């Protein structure tokens, strides 16, 4: 159910009808908007991980959270270095804002949980979040990115995030 919830958010934000003058479809985002979404999505997962380190007492959850901070930080550093090389700035957009708004609600919800209830919610969300973002990156972002270096970075990132998805699936079983 959690997965369906996240997928629904992404589906709605990615595919909702065009409103006003601005395109409201993930498929219409340009490279710099896509880079912004990815940077925001990375930082959201880093925030979830810090929350997990603060609340959870489960070593498997801590290990996963530390990997999320380490890997998403490394990917973001590469992304910023590439943007600096290209003399480009990531561009804020509707999907970045929706992701941030949804993450704020989830952080409020998870902050109130403790013990096994927190671990279960964190693990299930990590699995759902990685599935949803990986699907977006693989099927919408990568096919639409025009710059070859940006595309290569997303392809490398996707390989890492697919490993995270498998790791999250393992963590979900561990916290049952």
């Amino acid at each position, binding site marked *: 159910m959690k997965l369906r919830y996240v997928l629904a958010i992404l589906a709605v934000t990615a595919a909702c009808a065009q409103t006003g003058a601005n395109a409201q479809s993930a498929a219409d985002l340009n490279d710099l908007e896509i880079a912004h979404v990815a940077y925001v999505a990375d930082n959201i997962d880093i925030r979830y991980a810090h929350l997990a380190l603060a609340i959870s007492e489960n070593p498997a959850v801590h*290990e996963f959270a*530390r*990997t999320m901070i*380490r*890997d998403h930080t*490394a*990917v973001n550093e*590469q992304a910023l270095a590439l943007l600096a090389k290209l003399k480009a700035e990531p561009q804020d957009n509707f999907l970045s804002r929706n992701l941030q708004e949804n993450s704020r609600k989830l952080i409020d919800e998870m902050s109130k949980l403790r013990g096994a209830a927190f671990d279960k919610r964190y693990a299930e969300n990590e699995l759902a979040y990685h599935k949803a973002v990986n699907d977006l990156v693989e099927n919408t972002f990568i096919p639409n990115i025009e710059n070859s270096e940006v595309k290569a970075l997303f392809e*490398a*990132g996707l*390989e*890492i995030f697919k*490993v995270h998805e*498998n*790791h999250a699936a*393992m963590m979900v079983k561990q916290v049952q």
Partner: protein
Amino acid sequence: MIARLTFVPDRLRVRVGDRISWTNRDIAPHTATALDRSWDTGRIDKDETKSIVVTADLSPAYFCRFHPNMKAHLEIVVDD
């Protein structure tokens, strides 16, 4: 070598006294760590290399502590 979140090769025949080196070609940091934790290269960042020297009693199965699904195996040949 470590590339695309796999140890390459994932099975390696080595002799006692050999030095095994892992160079990380990924963005994500990795480790090479014995499954029984008896040896550990520590964190290997992008384009960094870490190595160990093979001993007769070296534990052969290893993984990445940061990405536990990444696994590999050494075959240790002991000279007569």
